[in-house]
């Protein structure tokens, strides 16, 4: 192993162990244990890099899996440690062959080319967004392989708001989940392929895809939907009120009777906020739709974290628990999300409550004209 450097030395040496990251880390908050903090994990990485610990060390392996990859530690780090990159390098090494969690292997296989054909067909069946011919100069809407299957209404809503968005059915996967699950190089290749298939500006409705694509294709090519709308594309949200309408244009409960502005909160997408730096824009849009209510620790991970909720459901629920407590007291009509993972996590958890979980694009598209 000696000589085979796993980590970029420059990235690794940035951390000076001040510990400012500790309180921002969801897993450290759960355990209070150094090894499950960003600083502690970097200490483990260093020990691996310097041959004091083996990559097969049980703690090293366990911590590379326990980390949500939410990157909440990055914006609070005065030294500018790029933890997300270190985590990808870590998992590239840790999660090879048998050491990769079984479920992750299945998940990534599903995202493989053959699987993508199936997803594409399924997406077509579920009418993610109707393919529309147009010129290449027009912005392209990325459909997202998870989102188009689970929440096809999100891209349909985006298209309804901005009909000029092109949405070819064959796009492929952006590779974010690969990069997060120990296949950085494949993640990069998939992103570049998607970049070729969707020339020009790529608009995404998924925070996770947005961060990965931005890192691979550049911020001049990729723009997240809420940031794109806030920049003046699409209808003016000031004209809209967040009373969701059904297909016939009738208000949906619980607002059928009440004329008050809807109380709307937001759960940030970790990657959108921590990696891309987009968090003001969705709030601005919501504030123009109804009464914006800041959810305590909205920037803290909901536990979805890409494939994490599938791979580690118990830990995912533990991370989510304090958020549900916070939400319980807020009496929200809507909780807006900007990422399919958060959507799935929160819609499941809030089933039966009066708070309806919606993607911001859906909220905008179904809002009534004021």
């Amino acid at each position: 192993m000696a000589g085979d450097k796993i980590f970029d030395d420059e990235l690794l040496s940035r951390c000076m162990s001040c510990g400012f990251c500790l309180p921002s880390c969801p897993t450290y908050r759960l355990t209070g244990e150094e090894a499950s903090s960003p600083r502690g994990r970097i200490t483990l990485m260093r020990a691996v890099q310097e041959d004091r610990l083996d990559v097969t060390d049980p703690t090293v392996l366990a911590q590379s899996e326990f980390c949500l990859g939410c990157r909440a530690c990055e914006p609070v780090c005065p030294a500018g440690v790029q933890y997300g990159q270190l985590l990808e390098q870590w998992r590239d090494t840790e999660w090879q062959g048998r050491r990769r969690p079984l479920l992750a292997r299945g998940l990534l296989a599903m995202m493989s080319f053959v699987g993508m054909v199936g997803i594409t067909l399924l997406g077509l069946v579920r009418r993610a967004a109707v393919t529309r011919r147009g010129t290449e100069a027009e912005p392209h809407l990325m459909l997202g392989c998870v989102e188009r299957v689970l929440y096809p209404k999100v891209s349909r809503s985006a298209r309804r708001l901005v009909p000029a968005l092109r949405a070819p059915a064959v796009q492929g996967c952006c590779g974010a989940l690969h990069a997060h699950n120990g296949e950085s190089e494949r993640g990069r290749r998939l992103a570049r392929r998607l970049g070729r298939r969707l020339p020009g500006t790529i608009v995404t409705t998924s925070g996770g895809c947005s961060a990965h694509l931005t890192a691979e294709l550049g911020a001049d090519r990729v723009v997240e939907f809420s940031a794109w709308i806030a920049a003046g594309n699409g209808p003016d949200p000031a004209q809209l009120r967040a009373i969701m309408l059904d297909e016939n244009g009738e208000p949906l409960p619980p607002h059928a009777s009440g004329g008050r502005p809807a109380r709307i909160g937001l759960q940030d997408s970790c990657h959108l906020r921590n990696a891309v730096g987009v968090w003001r824009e969705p709030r601005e849009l919501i504030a123009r739709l109804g009464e914006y209510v800041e959810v305590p620790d909205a920037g803290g991970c909901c536990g979805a974290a890409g494939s994490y909720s599938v791979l580690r459901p118990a830990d995912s629920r533990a991370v989510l628990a304090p958020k549900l407590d916070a939400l319980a007291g807020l009496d929200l009509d809507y909780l807006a999300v900007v990422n399919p993972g958060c959507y799935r996590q929160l819609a499941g958890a809030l089933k039966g409550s009066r708070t309806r979980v919606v993607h911001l694009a859906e909220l905008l598209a179904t809002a009534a004209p004021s």
Partner: protein
Amino acid sequence: MDSTELARRLAEIVGERHVRIAEGDLEAYARDATPLFRHRPDVVVFPGDATEVAAVLTLATELSVPVVPRGAGSNLAAATVPLAGGIVLVLTRLTRILEISGPELLARVQPGVSTKALADAAAAAGLLYVPDPGSQVVSTVGGNVATCAGGLRGLKYGVTRNYVLGLEVALATGEIIRTGGRLWKDVAGYDLTRLLTGSEGTLGVITEVTVALVPKPAAARTGVAYFTDLAAAGRAVAAVIGAGITPATCEFLDRTCVAAVEDYAHLGLDTDAGALLLFGDDGDPEMVEASLARIGQVCTEQGATGVTLAGSIAASEDLLAARRCSLPALSRLGSLTILEDATVPRPQLAEMADRIAAIAAKHRLTIGTFGHAGDGNLHPTCVLDAHDTEAIERSHAAFGEIFAAAMELGGTITGEHGVGAAKLPYLERRLGADQLALLRRIKSAFDPAGILNPGKLGS
């Protein structure tokens, strides 16, 4: 006793799930925020209350196993590095704020509560917890007391020891004692509260802290003055104090630190300036305005090249937040950052700044200096390449000279970080042989088996 057997005995006290013995976990607890110090413990234990802490200590005394108490491990003096191995006793499970009493102006908290959490809880009750260490987002109250942490409000309000009313402490011999209490006035017995504050885990393990709070000031505001160099800023501080003003905050950063902070925080600081003085005051709004105007005026008279006042509370907070992160921000400049902590009498500030600059030049080192100018407390910080062992040697020599210079000017080797393992070699020079011997006798009265934090104070 091998560590597996030790872990088994500890598990009988705290439960198996609160004991760690795996190599990776031990590696994670081999260091704190101090560079160049690392030593793995044999076992890590997470007790859940004072009784469990006491039982762990009793066992350790019985077996003569070293114990290093630890909170968030943000200290900069290697005070929580287990130099002799043994047990690292982590207090991060004790995170409850037990009480905030408005009428008595106090709070009672467990040691693992972060300083920021205590400050926020006090603020929610309309009160202020005064001690304000730069690392407050992560540092724990227990650790603050154990090291007598300072911070940004030291000049007007003092440091942690001025706010500790009482402690609950588990002794190495297994007793749990309560020192002080809820009273400002209490002279029954030796002042063990004060003795334990700053004892760095060498006399006992703090399991509960009662701190004094003050009413929240009606207003607080900050401003910035730029100077050509740190010595000029130092002279301005002396002039401000000389004019009869005691600002709540009076911090300075040299050119290197201003650039690093600006790179992180993007506040629009003037990176061309040689030094920056961040001053602030709190209290009655009109008084604060008058105080800030007066400080600005004195700075201008002392040659400040520019003075600006923060326009809003948010802007003031941003400035203070930027100052708090100067150390980690500095680490952008190199792979190894060694921060030190020397204090001189306030009138010697300019002289000390000059000497640090000269020492840095002599040893061909990049030393950025920032600190609590109002208290005469400086943090010369050396940034270098972690692989350059020759430069690291030069930095040791430079810091030796810096401490010598501080003492020569009537100062001390540490103002707020503590002695830990990093400063122990310099302690005798500061205290003298007789006092050091007394420290050791006190230590053995508290800790007859010598298990608590060996290699630190009292060793």
